């Protein structure tokens, strides 16, 4: 079966510094896959290459079998690639519902329209509200994002990505900076996401990773160190060395 997302020999160098080296990666349809690794392993760089924020030096990226390596960010999003950011990247001074509506309107191709008031696009508003309700943010829909607690802002990140109706969703540390009580809420939200969406999550919270993922890829120094089920990764000596140091290997 064609993978939802695949990379072939993906490399990225900044001059003499290589940050991604021959990454072969496969994300199956409907998969729950985690990408882990120590700080500086190249995880966010990898995500940035997948989404088109960074151009790979060499290699190929395929979305549903289609080569998207040379496509821009917006074209990749149109083909069903959604993402969230490690650090909240929201429209801070607009309402929660507008944050999501911007995404829905882009997906539907309404955002070029200049004369009919935005509030008359009921379908955009209704879908945005429905998404916000699903994520438990209905009470905050009209509040400015800047005034929300950090955990809720992380949920808005996810809501925006879902507003694009992605086939593949890349979540860059969705629980980063969130208190443990709220990270459970984020995990609940992730668990409830539609099964047809393939999800790749980058996360440092190992508890969340091992509860969520069916497969895990470990990245170190820009290269894939190991890949397997959570049990296989937990039992992998190389992975333990990376995380705990040589003496614990």
């Amino acid at each position: 079966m064609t993978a939802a997302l695949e990379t072939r020999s993906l490399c990225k160098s900044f001059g003499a510094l290589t940050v991604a080296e021959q990454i072969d990666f496969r994300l199956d349809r409907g998969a729950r896959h985690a990408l882990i690794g120590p700080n500086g392993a190249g995880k966010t760089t990898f995500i940035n290459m997948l989404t088109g924020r960074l151009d790979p030096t060499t290699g190929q990226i395929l979305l549903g079998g289609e080569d998207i390596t040379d496509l821009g960010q917006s074209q990749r999003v149109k083909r069903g690639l959604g993402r969230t950011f490690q650090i909240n990247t929201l429209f801070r001074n607009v309402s929660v519902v507008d944050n999501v509506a911007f995404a829905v309107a882009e997906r539907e191709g309404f955002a070029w329209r200049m004369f009919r008031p935005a509030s008359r696009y009921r379908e955009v508003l209704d879908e945005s509200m429905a998404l916000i309700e699903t994520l438990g943010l209905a009470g905050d829909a009209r509040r400015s994002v800047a005034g929300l607690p950090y955990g809720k802002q992380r949920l808005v990140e996810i809501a925006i990505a879902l507003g694009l109706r992605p086939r593949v969703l890349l979540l860059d540390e969705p629980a980063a900076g969130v208190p443990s009580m709220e990270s459970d809420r984020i995990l609940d939200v992730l668990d409830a996401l539609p099964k047809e969406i393939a999800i790749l999550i980058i996360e440092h919270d190992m508890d969340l990773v091992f509860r969520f993922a069916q497969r895990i890829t470990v990245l170190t120094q820009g290269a894939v160190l190991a890949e397997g089920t959570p049990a296989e990764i937990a039992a992998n000596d190389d992975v333990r060395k990376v995380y705990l140091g040589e003496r614990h290997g």
Partner: protein
Amino acid sequence: MTHSGGYIADPRIRAVEWLPWVAAVICYFAAPSYLPLGSYVLIMVIFALSLDLVLGYGGVITLGHSAYFGIGAYTAGILAVRLTGEPLLGLLAGTVAAGLFGLVTGLVILRTRGLALLMLTLAITSLCLEIANKATSWTGGADGLGGFTVQPILGIFKFDMFGKTAYLYCLLVTLACWWLVRRMVYSPFGASLTGVRENNVRMHAVGAPVYLRLVVAYTISAALAGLAGALLTQTTQFVGLKVLGFELSGELMVMLILGGVGRIYGAFVGPLIYLVAQDYLAKQFPEYWYFGIGTMLVLVVMFARGGLLGIVDIAVARVRRWLT
């Protein structure tokens, strides 16, 4: 008084939004000797609206908007000298010429951001100024372009020496521009511009063609600036190099900041306060009038980041809190 648009904003025109138009009509009857100044204020309102569209909503910082104003002004002037003084045709030609120039320059400069963009906008207006200065057979060079006649509007309404027709003409054109910009701000297009201003990175991540969208907004903005320039040429029957100067771009920026950026009506309040203050101060203190304007700007930047309308917003919010 903020007009951010968006999907939950109520697009209906509120009663208070008719205030500038009522005031403008009252001015027509109550201050007939100030009609030329009034016409100039209205022209600068259109010009400020054009800047607000790209700066206030799109987040594009430019110091070269006078290039488009000047191209509109010279197009209308050259058309009147060489072909016809028909005002609506001149207005259309000025708008289209500035819009096309905005499209071409926008395609180039909007690939950059920040300081590079700012410098490029400055470079464009400086180039236009120098070209107009050298092309004397078309523009009149440093002497300016005059000696043309603007025909009656629709063949009926003649421009008079008291500036009555010019004022009403400017008022109607400003009304049309306000309606257009307001409509745009409240549309999905306006909402997406707000998105670009708020977070460019996120707009890319939701699949927005940010560059193209900014180019379109910039083109519309340039066209509006050109329209304002053409209007100035027609109402004064003269066009000089000043319309292409960097100083004009700077003044416009000051007016908009004074009124409040990204609020639509900041583009009304700013030029009004600035030009009326300039008129008054220049009479009272011919040598130091800019001191007053400078003081006003410093106070606004230090204490009222939202401009004069921002102060009104804060005051209204406090009164509401006090009442409840």
